[in-house]
Structure formats: C-alpha cells, structure tokens
C-alpha cells in the first residue's frame, strides 16, 4: 500500500489512503512492435538502396603543350563505339581489318585480352604494353562509354585515350556497313 504520487503540479490529497486498483501490469505490445518493425524495415530498405559507385577518370589538360608521343603502330588498338551497342575495332592503323564486336565478356573483353597477350609477346616489356584508342561515334551513348572504360579496368589496360571520332572514322564505318550490307542483299 502506498500513496499515490500526485501528478505534476497537483496538490496532496487530504488524508485517507486510496487503495490502488489491482490492474494487470501487462500491456499488449503487439501493435507497437508491429509499427516498430514496419519503420525498421522501411529505414533499412531506404538506406541500403542508396549507394552509388563511381569510377574516376582523368582527362588531359586543355593547354597540354607536351610533345606528342610516338607510339609504335603495332601496339595500337582502335575501338570505335557505334550505335546499337556495337563496337568496331581494328588493330594497328589499317582500318581495312575492321571487325565488329559487342560489350559482352566473350566479345570485347576477349578481343582486348587476346590483343594484349599478342602485343606483350611482341614487345615483351611493361613499358610498351597495348595502347587503346577509344573513339565514341556520335550515335553511341553514355552507357557505351562507361562500359568500355569499365572494361579497361577489368582487363587492366592502363594506357588508353578517349578521343573524338573524326570524319575519317565515320567513313570507315560507312564503308564497313556498305560492305557488310552487300552480301545480305539478294
């Protein structure tokens, strides 16, 4: 038996003990727990969803006055990024050997790896590894560029350059498309 503590600010009751009612001390917590877990689930899901990854790239400075470097043509592989997720590529500087590839593991990745081993076998030192020119054509999109840069990372190619496609490159593609289109037409 005890006195009921008066709620904040209330005066004391005059004399007479008040019997506290015997009530169950258990409260049904289920709805509260439901709510708590609902909120918990909500916050867990919203926080983990939000994790963008990033890739760092470097571009040359605008007023780059350094001497252009001479690269042995046999070390060079040129990639032209075309429309509909197509890659056109040729080794060296002879566009006549142009071939088509896609962005899959067995596509461009395999080609890059093969060329890398070939070039490494030819020159045999790390200083003179493969050099990749990436030229996105106007029809290519941002995804293609990111994909190919990602591929550079996966294949571990350290020497590559992103450059603008020239009119000459466009002609090469047109010629290629024309030559490919010919056998298909009856």
């Amino acid at each position, binding site marked *: 038996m005890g006195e009921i503590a008066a709620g904040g600010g209330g005066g004391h009751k005059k004399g007479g003990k008040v019997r506290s009612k015997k009530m169950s001390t258990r409260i049904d*917590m289920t709805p509260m727990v439901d709510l708590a877990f609902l909120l918990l689930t909500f916050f867990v899901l919203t926080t983990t969803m939000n994790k963008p990854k990033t890739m*760092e*790239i470097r571009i*040359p400075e605008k007023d780059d006055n350094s001497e252009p470097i001479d690269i042995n043509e046999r070390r060079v592989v040129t990639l032209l990024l075309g429309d509909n997720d197509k890659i056109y590529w040729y080794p060296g500087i002879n566009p006549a050997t142009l071939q088509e590839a896609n962005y899959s593991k067995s596509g461009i990745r395999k080609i890059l790896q093969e060329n890398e081993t070939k070039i490494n076998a030819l020159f045999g030192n790390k200083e003179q590894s493969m050099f990749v020119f990436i030229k996105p054509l106007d029809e290519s999109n*941002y995804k*293609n560029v*990111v994909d190919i840069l990602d591929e550079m990372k*996966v294949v571990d190619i350290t020497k590559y350059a992103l450059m603008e496609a020239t009119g000459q490159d466009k002609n090469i593609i047109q010629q290629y498309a024309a030559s490919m289109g010919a056998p298909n037409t009856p």
Partner: protein
Amino acid sequence: MGKVKPHRSSPTIDMTPMVDLAFLLVTFFMLTAKFRPEEPVQVTTPKSNSQIIIPENDVLTLTMSKEGAVYIDVSGKSARKQLITNMGEKYGISFTEEEKEKFAGGSSIAIPMGNMKQFLALDLKAQKAVKQPGIPKDTAQNELVDWIKQARLSNTRLRVAIKGDENTKFPEVNKVLKTLQETNVTVFNLLTSPENDK
C-alpha cells in the same frame, strides 16, 4: 486411465527486450537517414564493376538527362548559398536573401541564369512543374563553365561527379567533358550503379 493434461504455460512472451532493440534500430536508422530533396529528373546510371564510393560532402554533381540537359547540384547548404551569390555577381543579377535561401534548400537545378530569378520566385510545387531546359553548355553560350568555376572558387576541395543517363548521346556527354577540360577539372568521377550479375 486419466488423460494427461497438457501443461498450461502462459502464452504471453515478454517482448520488452525485442521492442527495445527494435526501437533502438529504428532510432538509429532514422537519425542516419538523410532525406534528399526530390530530384527534378530521373536518371538511370550505367552499371560498372567499379567499387569506389563517392564521398558525401564537397561534391558537385552534374546530372545529364536522356535528352542531354545538364543539371547542377552542389552538396551543402552554405556552399549552395555561396554559389548562387557568386553566380549572381558574375551575371549582374542581385538575388534577395529569400531567393538565395530557396536556392540553397533546393536540389539539382537546370535553369539558365536569365530565368533564374523568375524560377526562384515560384513556390516549390510550381518549381516542380517547370520543365527545366538544362544549363546552357554550347560553345556560343556556356554557363556551365561559370557554374563550375564559381563552385570551385567557393569550395576548393570540390570534386566533380557526372551522373549521366545510360541513353545520353555521346556528343552531349562530350560537351560536358570539353567544358570540364576548359575549367581545368581534369580528374572527376562518373557515377555508376553496381553491377549485380557478375
């Protein structure tokens, strides 16, 4: 033979520790969660195997929509306020304190400076309805250069991140890259979403 009476145990379990834990976690997630202002444009970033996580602060995000419109966003309220003040000075537009606050509290923005005052005069709901044309980035009229320059002046530790849509055409991307080169931002980040099938 008498039946064996099942032992009657109370069906109530003391849930208090569980509830304590649940609320602790709720509180934790609530406090760590950051609500960002809604982005004016939805962008699907391309996937990559890259694992680097972008820092939360001191980031200048250039969002590129499918159509190639560029939206600019700087993290940090004070940095944003500084930025709009600087941009106003540069373009000879004086923004009121209220307009600056509005800019600072907003998200990505893609309004040419000429229309900025008009845009900031609108309330949030009306702003959302506006189709933002993108920050001019052509060689003839390149406001993006000034945005980047001013943003870097007000915060020297600023990193530039590009958040492009998968389907943005390369010539549009190239314009942004050229602009970055012009402002001597030669190191920057491309935001991607993690690859999940490899």
